[in-house]
């Protein structure tokens, strides 16, 4: 379909083209395409094919195609669809900083849902460092958010507050931390790069602004405030930042049991299993999560991030023992697409689908999850 909001006649017209061409049922019927089942488009979910295609700079219209339409916010039904709208709204170079997802690890895990377990008392809340969160979701740190929306971090915390969700503010924010904190109604954490020379000074400002937890990102080399490649964790730098702090410290960027142990040795109260949004090739955070939880989960709080896009994704991490999941790119898609309201929508969609899937798997709360509820499949060789 060429547009989300098509008339029935248009829809029938374009779908009729599909019948004449590739057909509906997929691989098997004679003369049918490689698209299985009802997947008319072959795209996961209904998709917003409208806004795909050549990426357009703001205000620019490709020759011969009708101008793309930005759908009203409540037409979008999953977080991934916000990416399409963000792409529409942003110059290509800016969009590229928040583009894409790595879904492979999620697709190798299926659930083993249990029936007839009452979940009417559904409660997704979690305690993190003495603070109660409505759901095990935090907005992850992202630098320079004004490039995605004129209000930048201010819109992000307003949207997150409306969705009753905490935010980890990046030390590379485009708005001063004190101004951001003034808008926040939910807990703020503050994130610095261990590699950053001014990290400790920034932390002191953040504490003054009321941030509750300090998140130190290790193992990333920086370029313009963004992680570009993996380097060994600099524990000396962590130690310098830590001196004299009485706030909980969370080490972000842990991908191995050795680093998890080192984080504990540094006095960290938590870790974020993360590969900096896929900057580092290799195993996905979700794939190393279970072994790290087994090692340190009893001693410290284990969080995780990396391509979480659906409620079922978050549920998988929780089943492996993560206490919460960080969302970064999807929230930026919401921000770029619709400002604070987009941030709120993305977070609420994920809360809702997460809650729904707690019902489907037969667990009323985080404590009732156990690893028998998932099956991890070996990679299929084709």
């Amino acid at each position, binding site marked *: 379909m060429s547009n989300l909001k098509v008339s029935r006649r248009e829809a029938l017209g374009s779908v009729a083209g599909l019948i004449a061409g590739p057909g509906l049922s997929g691989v098997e019927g004679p003369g049918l395409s490689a698209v299985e*089942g009802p997947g008319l488009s072959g795209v996961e979910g209904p998709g917003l094919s409208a806004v795909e295609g050549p990426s357009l700079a703001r205000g620019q219209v490709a020759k011969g195609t009708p101008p793309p339409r930005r759908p009203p916010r409540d037409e979008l*039904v*999953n977080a991934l669809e916000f990416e399409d709208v963000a792409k529409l709204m942003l110059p290509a170079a800016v969009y590229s900083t928040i583009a894409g997802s790595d879904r492979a690890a999620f697709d190798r895990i299926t659930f083993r849902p249990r029936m007839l377990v009452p979940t009417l008392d*559904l409660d997704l809340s979690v305690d993190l460092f003495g603070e109660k969160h409505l759901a095990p979701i935090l907005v992850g740190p992202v630098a320079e958010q004004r490039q995605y929306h004129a209000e930048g971090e201010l819109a992000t915390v307003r949207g997150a507050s409306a969705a009753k969700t905490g935010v980890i503010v990046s030390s590379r924010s485009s708005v001063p931390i004190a101004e951001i904190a003034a808008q926040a109604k939910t807990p703020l954490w503050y994130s610095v790069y261990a590699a950053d020379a001014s990290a400790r000074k920034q932390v002191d400002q953040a504490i003054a602004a009321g941030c509750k937890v300090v998140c130190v990102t290790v193992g990333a080399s920086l370029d313009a405030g963004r992680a570009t490649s993996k380097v060994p964790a600099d524990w000396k730098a962590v130690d310098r930042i830590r001196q004299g702090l009485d706030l909980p410290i969370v080490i972000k960027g842990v991908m191995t049991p050795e680093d998890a142990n080192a984080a504990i040795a540094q006095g960290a109260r938590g870790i974020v299993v993360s590969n900096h949004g896929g900057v580092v090739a290799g195993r996905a955070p979700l794939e190393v999560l279970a072994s790290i939880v087994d090692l340190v989960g009893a001693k410290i709080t284990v969080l995780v991030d990396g391509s979480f896009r659906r409620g*079922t994704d978050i549920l998988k991490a929780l089943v492996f023992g993560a206490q919460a999941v960080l969302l970064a790119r999807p929230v930026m898609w919401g921000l770029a697409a619709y400002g604070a309201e987009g941030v709120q929508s993305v977070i609420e969609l994920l809360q809702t689908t997460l809650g*729904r899937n707690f019902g489907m798997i037969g667990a009323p709360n985080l404590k009732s999850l156990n690893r028998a509820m998932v099956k991890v499949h070996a990679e*299929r060789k084709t």
Partner: protein
Amino acid sequence: MGTIDNRWRHGPTRRQALLALAGMLAGSPLLRAQRDPHPITGHKRVPGLDEMMTAFDFEPICFANVVLARYEYMARASESEFTLRRNREAFEWVDLVERPGAATAALQTSTEVLGIKMDFPIMIAPTAAQRDLHPDAESAMYQGASAAKTPMIVVGRSTIPIEKIAQAATGPRWSQFYPVQDLKISRETIETFQAAGARALVVTVDQQTDTGYERDLHNRNLGGTPRGASGGRGGGAPEQGRGGRGGGSAAPAPMQGPALYRVIPARLWYTWKYLDDIRAFTKIPILLKGILTAEDAKLCVERGFDGVIVSNHGGRSMDYGPSTLEVLPEIVDAVGGKIPVLIDGGFRRGSDIVKAMALGASAVCLGRAPRWGLGAFGPQGVQRLLEILQAEFLEAMARTGRTTLAALDRRAVRVNFT
């Protein structure tokens, strides 16, 4: 379609002549501007019933006959539709082991499940909203199924009253039932099914809350109705088809539990205890539909239920749940032959059914496939589609060299689940 020419040949009425003139005018540049900018072009000829070769052939015709939003409601599934796709993929992970020595004519394919004799281990799964497909809805499905000697599970919230459906044909029939919390209403409903001649009760235990059919949610904008969309953002209500007899809770919930997360409480109250309660007044065998783990299958046996249907609701319950075929062996093993194990989910070919039988199923239920038959050609379509699957079943079974269903064991397949 050459209709104008044909009309002239039979002698035009005044109206037809005007229509023909209008058709000619439509070619003029003046009127072109008024024309549909997206005409349906290309494929002009609709194939007939006698041209149907596989179940898949019925789908595009059903699609063309049915209101788009209602077609999508049938075809789609939960969230990313991972499980919908996986149901079909799983058949590619199981190969038949070919062995000579069985002629199709010599095959014994009949079986008996909970007292129902059937020529093939094939049944019709319960599906809602059959009115979308044919004006005679469940009655037409029942006629088609009975004509192909296929037992049917009539959906609980049928669009035609069960008493009327019961009169439409004579084949064996079970009734499906969605639990409702009120035991008195549960009892009345179940007694109605029994009185109408249901020979077993299929209690659906999955799809505990909103289903989140994302295409349905999009179809708000195509004139479709979001089924109980929560705040315009959450998702659709659980499956009710149209004109459901209640079931979901309508009272505005206080801000706690599911409401905090905009989750519809719907059927989150389900318990094993409720099932024990309804069993006390149910006189026919009870099967639980929606079982996906060995653990739950064992509970079914321990608690004295009469059968399980391994089902993920055709991908419409939990997204990223397993395909049914890949969990069938663990459930068959857990049940240990004590009660029948039926299965549904993505069955479209005779060979699919042979694979499930080899992995230990007692019979296979078809959800969408007979709906395609009904939407494409009415009861005759249902009958023809079932006969095609029966013929394919014979062929595939013959390839395994097994002449009886009992001989169709796990050695008849090579399994490559991961």
